[in-house]
């Protein structure tokens, strides 16, 4: 099912990723199924707490930082999930940026991904937004499959 992102929401995503550069930016896309696709209604940017969260459950090597990792504060997830449900929407996609790296999921992305959540990645090269791609784990969670992504006109 394609991920359809209205142009105004794409602009919010890109601006967030530019502001975060050279660190990774992140956020959640909320929306719902519409016309055979998942239509994004809103982008909720979130601070990247990789370097500050006390209970980071992920393996952390000396070379890891917010330049190559993102982590979401669970409180931010609760807040956005609650807001989405109050609007009759769902969290449909997790977004993060790859500073100076292609918009392809890393092995870290694959190993830690949740099935049935779309993962969108924006490459940011020298502070400029480049390719935006979307991915979803296959059923046995062994690999990411590309999801069709369309930038669409804003709903009237």
């Amino acid at each position, binding site marked *: 099912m394609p991920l359809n992102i209205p142009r105004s929401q794409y602009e919010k995503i890109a601006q967030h990723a530019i502001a975060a550069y*050279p660190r*990774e930016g*992140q956020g959640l896309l909320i929306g719902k199924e519409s016309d055979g696709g998942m239509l994004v209604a809103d982008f909720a940017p979130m601070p990247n707490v*990789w370097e500050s969260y006390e*209970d980071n*459950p*992920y393996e952390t*090597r000396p*070379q*890891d*930082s917010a*330049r*190559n*990792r*993102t*982590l*979401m504060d*669970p*409180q931010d*997830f*609760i807040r956005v*999930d609650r807001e*989405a*449900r109050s609007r009759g929407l*769902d*969290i*449909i996609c*997790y977004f*993060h940026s*790859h*500073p*100076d*790296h292609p918009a392809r999921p*890393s*092995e*870290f*992305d694959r190993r*830690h991904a*949740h*099935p*049935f*959540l779309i*993962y969108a*990645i924006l490459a940011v090269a020298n502070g400029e937004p480049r390719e935006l791609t979307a991915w979803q784990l296959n059923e046995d969670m062994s690999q990411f499959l590309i999801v069709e992504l369309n930038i669409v006109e804003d709903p009237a």
Partner: protein
Amino acid sequence: MGVKIIIPTPLRQYTAKNDTVIVEGATVEEAFKNLAAQYGDLRKQLFTEEGKLRSFVNIYKNDEDIRYLSKEQTPVKDNDVLSIVPSIAGGRPSVAGGASPVPACR
């Protein structure tokens, strides 16, 4: 009456699309055992084979992380709300010296 468990989007496929499930239980552990008994496929997502809560799963009782309460033994009562919150992370491959001023990942 019972404890309300809020299921986040990525896990609703295991709960027949339900976004909230009401269960009985006097502790977080009991409530989740009852939840897992109702939705067997959810068990693997939340617990290890040894029955421990997975490290990439956070549980909040009325907006407080149970790690800072009494963990799985945290008492719950009717009308308490438990939220299951998946840890979400991402990243690009790092390079040696990834914290240097000029990231040079290729």
